[in-house]
C-alpha cells in the first residue's frame, strides 16, 4: 500500500452541500482520495453517502462546493464529464438493460451516437482483455437478463473499466452477493488497486469496510464526522462513530423450542417467471424458536413467504398447522390462524402510502371485531389501538391521522411491527425485517423478535444479510433455486460454509449422499 502523503491526490471534494427541501443531505463535506487507495464511506441509511456519490458522478447538482478529478474541476450535473474524467460508478441498483447482451451493455454510450455502425470487433477485444486483467469472467454474448446478480455486478464493473475509469465508486456493492462472490469482488478490487486505480467503497457493513479499505470516512446525518486510517479503528469503534453513541446489539440466548406449530412436508410450488418456486421443501417451525432462512434473493424465499402467508398453495405436498392439514389455504385463514407477517417490502405490500396510520394499523383486521361490527367501522377503537402501538413501539409521528408515507422507514417498520406483535401471534413471518433501517431501529426490531420468541412464538426470519441470520437464528436453513438445506444449529456453520450452500453446491452433494 502506498502511503497517502506520498501518492497523488486523484479526487478532491470540497465543501459539498446538498439540500432536498428542508433536509440537508450533505453538509459541507470535503474529502480526498489518493492514487492506489481504497477509502470506505461508512454511514447508516440516510446518512448521505449515495447523495454524495451521485453529486460526484454528476447525477445530482450540488448546492455548494466543487468536485475535482485529477486536478480538473468537474462541471456540475454532468455524468458525461465525470465519465470522461475517469470516474466510474457501480450503482446499487444496476443500470443494465436486461434484454441486451453483455457486450451491448458495455459499449452503450461509448461510441459516437450517430456513427454509421457499431464496432463490435474492437469492443469485444477490449472487453476480453479487461476481463482477463481483472479476473472478471463474463460471456460477452450472454443476455444480461439471464445472468446471476454476481455476474451482473461484474458487467457493471466492466462497464466502468471499459471507459477507462481510474476511480471506481461502488455503492453498497456487497448487498446482493454471496460470501464467495464478495471475496471475488474484493480480489478484483485489490487487482484494480495494484493496477493504479483508486476506489471509493460505500457500505454500512463494518467487517467489509475493515477488510477492504485503507481509510474510512464516516458520515452521519449528512455530516462527515470522522476520518480514520483503518489500522486505528475496530468494528466497535466504527459502530459507535457511525451511530454517534455506543450501541449494543441485543444479547441473544439460545431459544427453548417447544411444539411444532407449522410443518411443511415435501411442498412444491410452481415457478414464477424467472423466480423459482419451492422444490420439495420440508420445514418445521417450533414454538420458542427463530428459524433463519439464508440465501441470495430470488431463490424461492418469496414463494415460501407467500405460501406461509396464504397467497399461494402447495401444488404437491402438505402444509400442517398444529398438526392439522390446511385445505383451501388463503391469506384470510393465515391471519385468522395467528400467522403474522412482516412483509418484505414495507412500501409495496406492508402499507398503503396514502392511508393514515390508523387505517394501516388495521389493514389485516379491519373486518373483525372490535374494529368493525355488523359492517360498520369503529374508528374510535381503531384509533385507540393505533395510539397504543405508537406508545408501545415508539413510533415517531405527529399522530394516528398522519399519512404513513410521511414516516421514515424505521418508524413505518415499527408500526408494522406493532400491528403484528400486538395480536400476540403464534407464528411470525419476518421477511427482511430490518432492510434499510438504521442500527438503532435494527436493534429494536431484533429485540422485539427475540422477545416474541421467548413468549413462545415461532419466528421465521428471511434475510439476505448473513450476519443478521447468524446472530438471531436458533436454526439456519439455506435456500437455493427453490431447494431448502437441512437445518444447521446455531454456531455450527461459518459464513463460508453457508456460502457454499447459498451458491447451490451443498445440495448436489447432499442428494448424492442421500442416493447412495
Amino acid at each position, binding site marked *: 500500500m502506498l502511503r497517502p502523503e506520498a501518492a497523488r491526490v486523484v479526487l478532491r471534494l470540497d465543501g459539498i452541500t446538498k439540500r432536498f427541501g428542508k433536509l440537508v443531505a450533505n453538509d459541507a463535506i470535503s474529502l480526498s482520495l489518493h492514487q492506489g487507495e481504497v477509502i470506505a464511506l461508512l454511514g447508516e441509511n440516510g446518512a448521505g453517502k449515495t447523495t454524495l456519490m451521485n453529486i460526484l458522478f*454528476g*447525477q*445530482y447538482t450540488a448546492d455548494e462546493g466543487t468536485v475535482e478529478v485529477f486536478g480538473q474541476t468537474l462541471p456540475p450535473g*454532468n*455524468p*458525461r*464529464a*465525470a*465519465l*470522461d474524467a475517469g470516474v466510474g*460508478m457501480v*450503482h446499487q*441498483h444496476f*443500470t*443494465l*438493460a*436486461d*434484454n*441486451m447482451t453483455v457486450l*451491448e*451493455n458495455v*459499449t*452503450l*454510450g*461509448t*461510441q*459516437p*451516437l*450517430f*456513427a*454509421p*455502425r*457499431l464496432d463490435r470487433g474492437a469492443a469485444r477485444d477490449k472487453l476480453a482483455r479487461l476481463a482477463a486483467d481483472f479476473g472478471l469472467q463474463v460471456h460477452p454474448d450472454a443476455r444480461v437478463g439471464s445472468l446471476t446478480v454476481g455476474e451482473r455486478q461484474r458487467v457493471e464493473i466492466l462497464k466502468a473499466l471499459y471507459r477507462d475509469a481510474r476511480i471506481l465508486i461502488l455503492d453498497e456493492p456487497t448487498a446482493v452477493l454471496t460470501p464467495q462472490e464478495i471475496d471475488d469482488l474484493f480480489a478484483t478490487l485489490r487487482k484494480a488497486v495494484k493496477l493504479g486505480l483508486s476506489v471509493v467503497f460505500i457500505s454500512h457493513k463494518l467487517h467489509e469496510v475493515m477488510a477492504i479499505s485503507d481509510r474510512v470516512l464516516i458520515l452521519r446525518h449528512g455530516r462527515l464526522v470522522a476520518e480514520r486510517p483503518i489500522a486505528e479503528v475496530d468494528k466497535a469503534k466504527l459502530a459507535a462513530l457511525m451511530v454517534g453513541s455506543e450501541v449494543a446489539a441485543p444479547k441473544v440466548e439460545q431459544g427453548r423450542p417447544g411444539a411444532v406449530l407449522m410443518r411443511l412436508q415435501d411442498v412444491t410450488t410452481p415457478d414464477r417467471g424467472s423466480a423459482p418456486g419451492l422444490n420439495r421443501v420440508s420445514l418445521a417451525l417450533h414454538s420458542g424458536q427463530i428459524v433463519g432462512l439464508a440465501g441470495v434473493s430470488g431463490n424461492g424465499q418469496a414463494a415460501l413467504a407467500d405460501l406461509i402467508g396464504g397467497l399461494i398453495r402447495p401444488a404437491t405436498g402438505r402444509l400442517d398447522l398444529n398438526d392439522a392439514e390446511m385445505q383451501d389455504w388463503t391469506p384470510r385463514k393465515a391471519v385468522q390462524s395467528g400467522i403474522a407477517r412482516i412483509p418484505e417490502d414495507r412500501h409495496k405490500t406492508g402499507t398503503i402510502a396514502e392511508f393514515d396510520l390508523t387505517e394501516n394499523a388495521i389493514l389485516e383486521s379491519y373486518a373483525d371485531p372490535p374494529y368493525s361490527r355488523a359492517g360498520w367501522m369503529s374508528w374510535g377503537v381503531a384509533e385507540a389501538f393505533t395510539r397504543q402501538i405508537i406508545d408501545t413501539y415508539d413510533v415517531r409521528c405527529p399522530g394516528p391521522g398522519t399519512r404513513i408515507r410521511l414516516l421514515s422507514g424505521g418508524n413505518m417498520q415499527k408500526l408494522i411491527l406493532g400491528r403484528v406483535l400486538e395480536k400476540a401471534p403464534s407464528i411470525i413471518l419476518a421477511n427482511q425485517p430490518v432492510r434499510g433501517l438504521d442500527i438503532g431501529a435494527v436493534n429494536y426490531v431484533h429485540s422485539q423478535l427475540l422477545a416474541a420468541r421467548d413468549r413462545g412464538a415461532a419466528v421465521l426470519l428471511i434475510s439476505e444479510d448473513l450476519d443478521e441470520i447468524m446472530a438471531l437464528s436458533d436454526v439456519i436453513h439455506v435456500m437455493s433455486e427453490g431447494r431448502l438445506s437441512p437445518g444447521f444449529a446455531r454456531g455450527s456453520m461459518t459464513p463460508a460454509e453457508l456460502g457454499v450452500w447459498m451458491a447451490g453446491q451443498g445440495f448436489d452433494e447432499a442428494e448424492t449422499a442421500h442416493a447412495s
Partner: protein
Amino acid sequence: MDILEILLSASFWTAAIRIASPLIFATLGELICERAGVLNLGIEGIMVAGAFAGWMAVYSGTGLWMGVAVAMAVGMLFGLVHSLLTVPFGLSQHVVGLGVTLLATSLTYYAYRLALPEVTSPPKIDAFQPYEIPLLSDLPLIGPALFSQTPLTYLAFILVGVVAFVLYRTPLGLALRAAGENPSAVAAQGLSVTGIRMGAVIVGSGFMAVGGAFLTMSAFDSFFFEMVNGRGWICIALVVFGAWRPGKALLGAILFAAFDALQIRIQQTPLGADIPYQVFLMMPYFLSILALIVMSRRAEVPAALMVPFNKGER
C-alpha cells in the same frame, strides 16, 4: 377449390402487398417509439394528418416526393407535441396519445374544409404509379406481387431493413433500445434519455404520417374522411405481434393484409352470397386477434415501456 385458386393468383398477392404498405410504415414508426419506451397512441390521428397533408401538397402543385416529405414533416410536428408532453413532462402516454389522435383528426378535417370549402367530392391527384422493376417483375407470382408496385411500397420494404440495421447495428439503436429497457442505464452513460426518446417519437411519428400518405398518394388518388379507418390501431397490435422486431412486424403486416385481400375476394365467390358481408369484413381483425394470442405470448415487452424517466430519481 376457390380459396386455393385465390391464394395462387398474382393479383391477390399484389393487392396484399399494396394493402400492407401503409401498415409497414406506421408499424415501423410505432415500433421505434415503443422500443424507446413511449407508447404512441397518436398513430391513428397522425396517419389521418399525413394522408391529408401529402395529398394536399401534391394537389397544390408540389411533386409527389415533396408531398411525402410534407406528410413526414407534419407527422413529426405531431410527434413533437406528443413527445414534449410524454417525455419531459411525463404525462400519461395513453391520455396524450388519444388526445393527439383526436387533435390531429379534427385539425385535418378543419383544414380540409378551410382549403376546399365548396367541393362535394374531393379532387383527384396524379398518384404514384406502379413501377415494374426490370427482370424481377417477370418472375412468376412474386414478380407482380413484389416488383410491380409503386415506389412508396419499395420504400416501405427498404425502410424495414434500414430500421433493423439502425436498431441492431448502430450505437444510436443500442441507446434507443436501452432507453426503452432501462433508461437509467442510458443516463448513467451520460446520454440524454429525454433526447433519445423525443427523437424516437418524432421520427416514428413521421413514418406513421408517411403510412397515411400512402393511402392518398399510392393506394388511392384522393382524400376521404374515415379513410384511415382504424389502421393505426392495427399497427399497435402488429408491433406486439412482431415482438417489437422490424422483420417480424413486416411479416405481421403482410399476413394481416393477406387476410384483408382474401376477405374481399371471398365475398365475390358463391360463399359470399350466403353469408352477410360483415362477417368477411370482420375476418382479418378476428384472425389478427387469434394470431396475436398465439404469437405474442412469449414476446418481451420493452421493460420501460410507458415508464416516464425523471432524472435524479431512484
